[in-house]
């Protein structure tokens, strides 16, 4: 797909036809999230489970973006959940929900959510979290057939290799943090993390979870990883890697039928100014399964994606 083709897609009209009432579906999702919150603050992955960083972040993001309450009322009700995140913050700035080690991908997500929510609690958390993200990096493996192994993005957990998802989330968080303040260390981390993503693009476009090839064999790209990679590189739309990635995503946008894959795809397409009606339609078609599995993290992602027109995916926009 050429730049011109991508541009023409951005201008194309949304599909029309019968669709479920989006506001009714969103209200159901909101109710599920509100009901699934833990009274002490935060959300677990499933109702009744211990609060965790990832579902809490997505739930806060989705509820904030779809709240009709005045800002101060919403902020007041969200405070107990932000306090859960604050309690999870260690002295080194990283958030840890359960032992033994922080999940760096979720720390990147937490930074993005706090950047979006703002307020004193979120800002206090960010003040120590962002420097921690700048400081942490994946290990560098040298002298392998693949030079990108030496590049350092972010691993899921410290002292392991860099992966596409945590790298994309932390890269996005650092890029957005540069709006407030930047510095040479942050700039260097952003630059190297971009190199990680650009170097690991699959031959067919898009991203696998890690490398583009292993043992000389090209690996296949996946939809959720590609969507996240493209969101983190949304400010490099003319790069051939981004263009090829978008082509892969457009061609496969309905091939991975799950709340996570479809929600991330819809968010990514919207960020890139591309039509996402078909994807959102598929999301509404599959909502019964999402509700049945009752993963609050996914429910929140779906709610945020289905309300994209309202909030413009501001939390991930560059």
């Amino acid at each position, binding site marked *: 797909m050429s730049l011109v083709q991508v541009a023409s897609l951005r201008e194309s009209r949304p599909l029309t036809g019968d669709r479920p009432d989006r506001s009714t579906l969103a209200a159901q999702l909101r109710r599920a999230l509100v009901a699934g919150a833990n009274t002490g603050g935060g959300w*677990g*992955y*499933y109702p009744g*489970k*211990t609060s*965790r960083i*990832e579902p809490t972040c997505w739930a806060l993001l989705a509820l904030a973006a779809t709240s009709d309450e005045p800002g101060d009322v919403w902020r007041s009700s969200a405070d107990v959940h932000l306090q859960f995140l604050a309690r999870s913050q260690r002295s080194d700035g990283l958030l840890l929900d*359960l*032992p*033994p*080690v922080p*999940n760096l*991908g*979720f720390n990147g997500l937490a930074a993005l959510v706090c950047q979006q929510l703002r307020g004193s609690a979120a800002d206090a958390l960010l003040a120590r979290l962002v420097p921690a993200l700048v400081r942490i*990096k994946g*290990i*560098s*493996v*040298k*002298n*392998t*057939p*693949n030079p990108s*192994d030496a590049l*350092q993005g972010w*691993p*899921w*957990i410290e*002292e*392991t*290799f*860099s*992966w596409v*998802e*945590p790298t994309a989330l932390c890269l996005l968080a650092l890029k957005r943090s540069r709006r407030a303040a930047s510095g040479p260390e942050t700039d260097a981390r952003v630059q190297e993390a971009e190199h990680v993503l650009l170097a690991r693009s699959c031959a067919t476009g898009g991203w*696998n*979870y*890690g*490398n583009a*090839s*292993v*043992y*000389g*064999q090209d*690996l296949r790209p*996946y939809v*959720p990883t590609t969507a996240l990679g493209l969101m983190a590189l949304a400010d490099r739309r003319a790069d051939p890697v981004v263009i090829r990635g978008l082509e892969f995503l457009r061609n496969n946008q309905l091939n*991975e*039928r*799950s*709340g*996570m*894959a479809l929600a991330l795809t819809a968010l990514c397409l919207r960020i890139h100014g591309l039509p996402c009606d078909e994807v959102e339609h598929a999301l509404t078609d599959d909502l019964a*399964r*999402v509700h*049945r*599995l009752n*993963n609050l*993290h*996914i429910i929140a992602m779906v709610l945020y994606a289905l309300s994209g027109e309202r909030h413009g995916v501001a939390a991930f926009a560059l």
Partner: protein
Amino acid sequence: MAWQPSHSSGRHAVTKDHRQSTRLSRRAFLATLPLTAAVAACRQRPYRRDDFTLPDRSPMAILPAPGYDVDLADVIYRGLELLRPPVAGRRVFLKPNIVEYESGTAINTDPLMVAGAAAAFLKAGALEVVVGEGPGHRRDVEYLLAGTGLDEVLTDHRLRFIDLNHDDVVRVPLRSRFTGLDELWLPVELVRSDFIVSMPKLKTHHWVAMTASLKNFFGVVPGAVYGWPKNILHVRGIEQSILDIVATVKPAFTIVDAIVAMEGDGPIMGKPRPMGFVAMGTDLVAVDATCARIIGLDPLKMPYLKVASEYLGNLAERRIEQRGENPSRYATQFDVLEPFKNRRLA
């Protein structure tokens, strides 16, 4: 699959840039060695011998099942009758191997096997049957459940699914410490189960030659805690991790899906190989050793199986009691990657 780094063998300079001088403890150093070298370097085994008792004999059963369209509940129930595991009144946890979805492949335990096992255990008196998995590199469990058809099976049979990557976790001291780790944080629903059943697909494996009942337990380590693809286990050694997890989780039974197995570049990119049997048993080492022999591999040449036979189960044929079909009926030679050709039976 996207394991990193992309090297295929040999040692590489691994730096952490700002922390290059990090010193390894002796235990952590041993965990970085291949299992055979680590074992050779150990003056004593990293487990208490008194904690493990090898059975004198390990009964197992191989049952014919030419396709997934046979009555698998009946096949598995007949296996349970031959082996009489103590399931009455127990909460049974089925752990299938769900890795990746690709139409027309033999990557995953067939969902119909899960349905059959659930029905068979309930008929045998189990109090409850739940199904749990924590896919190793794909985070998107909903996609895997939907794609593989397991979601439909769970719904039709009203089976509860435990997402092991995202369940609450509890600290569990390791009963053996080949990884150099003292403990793992494991899913509470798994730890609280009182009869854990491995339900692997029989496949060749590009790192450890073969994956079946034992290797299947990689999937119980929670990704949300340890990252994907269960990074800590790869850093600490795959074979070491297999041993420590199985020693700690103490699975009670295994049911191997070898109706259509996988050969060649497994566990994902290999080719389907129809074999037409189900292997079952209470001793996972014995069942895996038998499966290895059936596909033409020498279990003694697979380091994790050899070490497992010292404390987790029986590997020697004379200690394995076949109560179903004679395994020789299915004996063949699987295609394996070049590095594993020397692991074939003489």
